[in-house]
């Protein structure tokens, strides 16, 4: 092992690479740290150096009704998107991973294609579909398609964006599970759904959790598609984006930034831990 790495990097090279890596890590985390420091800055403007320590922006933020409403909106959207993208992703991943069927590769390309489509184009497209497209909602709900604009449209857009990610997490996990396990269950008389519930589901639960979390994180952070298709409603990132562009409004927003960073770090770590443990479990079985 060490012999191999000596071949690739000389002693000096190793030292300078390590220095570079150290500096990189500092540069990587510094901006976020700075943002967190400024959340306690006792000033309405964010100029360097910070002038004093205060926590009153936190209580200000907690009393900002517009902000709180946007948080509630984002949580609503995030949970719906996470559930929808995970369930749809699971339904789609199973046949993609396990079965050969006609049109398999076009279907899988279609499912992953939102990955490369710029969010701004997706936002425009959904907005135009609702405002200018055929009125497809009328037979379903008896209302106008334009009523979909708002949080419903955000949920749909975010599900499209998150779906490829849930599929990329779930499909390889399903594919990696030994087919014999399912066949054994089948031979022992279990029906398809029972096999799925008793054999497959326990093995992919960790992947389902991390798919759910990733979809939630994507939705809670998405601003471009949301800003196209919400009418009057605001999501949290929209509120942040609007406030951050005006220097006098940022002080109230920074506590939210602080909490958001902490929460998203926690979620990211949680998702990884769950997935890594899931990997071990599958390899062990």
């Amino acid at each position, binding site marked *: 092992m060490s*012999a*191999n*790495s000596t*071949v*690739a*990097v000389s002693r000096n*090279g190793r030292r300078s*690479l390590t220095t*570079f*890596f150290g500096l990189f*890590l500092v540069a*990587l*985390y510094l*901006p976020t740290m*700075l*943002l967190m420091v400024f959340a306690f800055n006792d000033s309405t403007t*964010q100029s*360097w*150096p910070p002038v004093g320590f205060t926590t009153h922006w936190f209580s200000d933020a907690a009393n900002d009704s517009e902000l709180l409403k946007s948080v509630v909106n984002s949580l609503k959207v995030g949970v719906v998107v996470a559930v929808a993208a995970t*369930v*749809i*992703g699971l*339904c*789609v991943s199973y*046949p993609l991973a396990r*079965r050969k*069927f006609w049109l398999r590769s076009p*279907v899988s390309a*279609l*499912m992953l*294609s939102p990955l490369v*489509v*710029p*969010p*701004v*184009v997706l936002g*425009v*497209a959904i907005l*135009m*579909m609702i405002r*200018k*497209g055929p009125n*497809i909602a009328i037979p379903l709900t008896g209302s106008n398609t334009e009523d979909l604009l708002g949080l419903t449209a955000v949920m749909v*857009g975010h599900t*499209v964006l998150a*779906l490829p990610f849930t599929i990329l*997490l779930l499909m*390889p996990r399903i594919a990696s599970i030994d087919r014999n396990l399912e066949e054994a269950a089948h031979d022992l008389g279990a029906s*398809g759904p029972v096999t799925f519930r008793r054999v497959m589901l326990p093995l992919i639960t960790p992947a389902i959790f991390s798919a759910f979390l990733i979809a939630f*994180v994507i939705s809670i*952070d998405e601003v471009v598609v949301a800003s*196209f298709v919400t009418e009057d409603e605001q999501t949290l990132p929209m509120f*942040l*984006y609007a406030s*951050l*562009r005006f220097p006098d409004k940022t002080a109230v927003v920074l506590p939210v*930034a602080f909490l958001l*960073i902490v929460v998203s*770090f926690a979620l990211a*770590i949680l998702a990884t831990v769950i997935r890594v443990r899931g990997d071990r479990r599958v390899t062990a079985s």
Partner: protein
Amino acid sequence: MQRLRTSGSTWLLLAPGVLLLVFAFLAPLYVIYQFSVGERMFAQTPALASLTGEATSFTTQMWSGFLGHDVQLKVLGGSFTLPLVAVGIALLGLLLLTVYGSKLVPRGGGVLAIVSALLLITPFLALPWGDSFPRLAELSSEGTDLRLFFKSVTMSMTASLIAVLIAFPVAYWLAFVAKRSKYVWLLIVITPFLTSYLLRVYAWRLILSSDGPVNSLLLSLGLISEPVPWLIDSQFAVVVVLAYAWVPFICLPIFIALENMDRRLLEAATDLGASRLMAFRRVTLPLAAPGLIAAFLFVFIPTIGEVITPGLVGGTNGYMFGSRIQGDFISSGSFDWQQGSVISLFLLAVVLVLTAATSRFLRNAGGEVS
């Protein structure tokens, strides 16, 4: 019988995903397409707009208005006017040679591919420094939208290159220097990517602003007498922030390319008398190339349509193509549906062509990422 049941349940399982993407993705894209080839509607009132939306005849006038006829190529001070079609074909040809050069020409194909790649990126490369970026060559257009597109490609390509140049040594360290803890370090590198993009970008506004830490440090050192004007609300800021935001993400494909490399090849090269530099150039670099190209595209593709970064740190100078699309639909009260449709579709077409042409590299890296 069994076979039939299986295929029935297959499509039943696929149905929700397919329906979602057909109604919320493909059909909307088709609506944009319809608008982009409809007759120009001057009335922006909803009543008239919906009228024209239903009964327009096919025309390419919006497209020709956007694309124009000619493109200006500036090389080292000289300026040439070229037909757009010729430039388009040349760029596509260079792209194909870059991707398939080594397959088409058995000997020297690698060199051909590298030369094509360099020619392809030269008109879009800039030294990201100062008020206006110094450049070797530049594509420009009479049409404001197309000119903005060229500028956006330049900014996003420059950011992608910077990101790859930073991510490569990081991935190299992870693959060859870090020992057992390499996956923990990898996690530490990638985690920031999963935190709010919006906030990571905004943090740079604080850093680069005229009363931010960078300017105050330079001022206190006496290196400058007043804040550097192009640190914020500039192309510089957008390029730096885009590169910063995407570096953690692309460390992964590069790391995987290096990690999957057969280490014995390096030993063999050394045994055969190659120096470390030689082994790096002849063994490591060619084997890591697909990972590097994939990494480049992983930054380039999402950043051409970027909206948030120019919005937060770009000001008027750092305005990008994506911001233009957003402006057509959101900023002003009167939407320009058709203009917006044309430039959105153009952006989509460019991204799809790039993805299709380079899917070889993307598949190599992407398949292993997942």
